[in-house]
């Protein structure tokens, strides 16, 4: 069994919420105990709505969000790091192995730098090349892979559309040769016709460069198509992890079921789904006790209010965090 690329155990991320004179300061538990393994070479999907903590998880793995307790480790066979306790030198090496693609293509590129400089920046900062010619070569190489016109390298970002900017963003993330890339809502801000283009590009790049991609999105249909494994989050905890076909064919967790049934399908004659959730998403600063989903769960029992469910394996290769998942009627 190959070691997973990323191993997360008991990860919690707390953000302080102001101060109190007496007693402990209230915290926002953006992540409240995550156990997850991301296998090498996978196109791993992470879905959730607002307050789920999916963006925080992506950033915590990259050490761009605090790791309050728990461990996150990276092991690609050549180097291994414990993210929470890296020293500065290890962190610099890690930065060349793990990168981030942002959501907003308009904010992710400095408007004052040419495209060539934007893509070259990681190489220059990390000192991975020894001459300008070498940098130029690598920039050109990755630009070609991302299907960017080489003529455009002289231009500034304001010359490009959203889809093209996202490709520049991807090129910048990949130029240092990382093994692990977090795509944080990278297609959410794009038009539908462009989304498909970028998704196909990411898939092609993953195969070409043997990448492991963590694809964070709120859009389940996009995740369904592109990812091989999907993890569903709700209010800072994982509720279900499964291979993507299994998740969509046989969702186990009540939240996953509700999420799937809420997606508007393109078939106008599809029968209306049963699982309409009531109520609002609770605030992550003040989560419900026990199973965080119990306030909106149609199957909640007394036990759900008191005990936090842990992820348990199902027979078809997935995991579910629900006390009563075995007893639920088939969806």
């Amino acid at each position, binding site marked *: 069994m190959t070691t997973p690329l990323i191993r997360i155990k008991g990860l919690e991320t707390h953000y302080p919420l102001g101060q109190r004179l007496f007693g402990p300061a209230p915290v926002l538990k953006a992540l409240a105990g995550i156990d997850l393994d991301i296998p090498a070479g996978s196109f791993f999907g992470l879905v959730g709505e607002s307050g789920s903590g999916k963006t925080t998880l992506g950033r915590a793995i*990259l050490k*761009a969000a605090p790791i309050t307790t728990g461990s996150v480790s990276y092991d690609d066979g050549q180097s291994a790091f414990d993210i929470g306790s890296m020293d500065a030198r290890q*962190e*610099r090496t890690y*930065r*060349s192995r793990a*990168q*981030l693609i*942002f959501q*907003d293509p*308009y*904010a*992710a*590129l*400095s*408007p*004052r*730098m*040419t495209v060539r400089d*934007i893509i070259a*920046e*990681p190489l220059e*900062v*990390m000192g991975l090349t020894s001459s300008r010619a070498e940098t130029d070569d690598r920039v050109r190489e990755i630009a070609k892979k991302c299907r960017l016109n080489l003529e*455009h390298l*002289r*231009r*500034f970002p*304001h*010359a490009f*559309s*959203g889809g093209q900017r996202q490709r520049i963003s991807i090129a*910048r993330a990949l130029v*240092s040769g990382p093994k692990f890339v977090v795509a944080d809502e990278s297609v959410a801000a794009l038009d539908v016709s462009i989304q498909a283009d970028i998704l196909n590009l990411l898939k092609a790049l993953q195969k070409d460069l043997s990448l492991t991609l963590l694809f964070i999105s709120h859009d389940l249909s996009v995740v369904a198509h592109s990812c091989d494994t999907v993890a569903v989050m709700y209010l800072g905890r994982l509720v279900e992890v499964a291979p993507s076909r299994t998740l969509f064919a046989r969702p186990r967790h009540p939240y996953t079921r509700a999420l799937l049934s809420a997606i508007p399908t393109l078939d106008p004659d599809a029968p209306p789904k049963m699982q309409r959730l009531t109520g609002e998403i609770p605030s992550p600063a003040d989560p419900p006790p026990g199973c965080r989903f119990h306030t909106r769960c149609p199957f909640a029992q007394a036990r759900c209010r008191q005990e936090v469910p842990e992820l348990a394996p199902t027979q078809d290769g997935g995991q579910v965090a629900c006390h009563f998942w075995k007893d639920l009627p088939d969806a």
Partner: protein
Amino acid sequence: MTDRTVTTSVADREARRKEAYFTASQSQLIWARFRKNRSAMVAGIVLAAMILLGLFADFVGPYNPTIAGRNADYTNGAPQIPRFCDDDGCSLRPFIYGTKRERSIATNFRWVTTQDTDDKRYVQFFVRGDSYRFLGFSANLHLFGVDNGYIHLFGTDDAGKDIFSRTLHAIRTSLAVGTIGVVISFVMALAIGGVAGYFGGRIDGVIQMITDAVRVVPAIPLFMALAAFVPDTWSAETRFFFISIILGLIGWPTLARRVRTHILVERNQDYVLAARLSGARPGHIIRRHLLPSFTSYIIVDLVISFPYMVLSETALSFIGLGLKDPVNSLGVMLQNTTSADVLLNYQWYFIPVIFFVTLVMAFVFVGDGLRDAADPYASSRK
């Protein structure tokens, strides 16, 4: 055949224009936008003209603005506008009339100055006159003068000093005070505001308190105290530098706050985070991302705070707490205008006011134009 070449050249030009737009850097875009703003361009030209007048004040002004260059025979004299024609006919060269000063029983024994229409004095260009120092050289070339006697385009004051020359030198002094003050403010604001914005947290809090404390210091009492403290033995030049430095030292809080805000905003941009996730050190981020991001805003801030410096200096000099004779500034010139005599009889003392207003407004329009040109970039989206 001609048709096709015509259309391809139109298409070529269009393509080149587009390519120019695509490869235009931030500053080129801002300049292009600024150029389209007509009022800002006009103000810019006026501002440039005034700066040149100030820099070359010794050359453009015909006389030394201090007591040394005064015309004792023509005190409180009205402006002498050159004319081309009069009753005797016209001439190509402009001329003015000479003046005579006499006292007699007919005038109740008061000195009265009259124009002598027979005494024509022709205006000449590039004449040699009072000497002055320019860039370390001694020179005495002036733009214009008359072949005989004096010419006072804006009249004279009660000591006979030429108001036109004094106005030009006053522009120079005010600009110099403004420049020194703004430079000092800017350097301090950049350092203090930059540290506060970049590090945030407790450091920011402490710096904010200091900034507010300095900002609250009232200017007039401060200058009154300083005026009492400044020893009389200081030369006018020393006093001049002292005033400029003090203006700079109390002017930095506003600019510092702006620098801090700019940095706080830019620090949280996605592309800065991208640089940080590549392992960039703070120095790289500041140099490559933060500083260039607000250079355009800072230039706007500088241009807009210039008139405030000029205004402050003018106000202080006007009430006597700032510069004094013989160092000449607009405020100093306005000191003499507060008597009824001047208001009723010698209205030309107020001509410098027009220059002053023009200078401030030119700065304001240019600053506004720059700000409009720099701003829309941030919000231009698909």
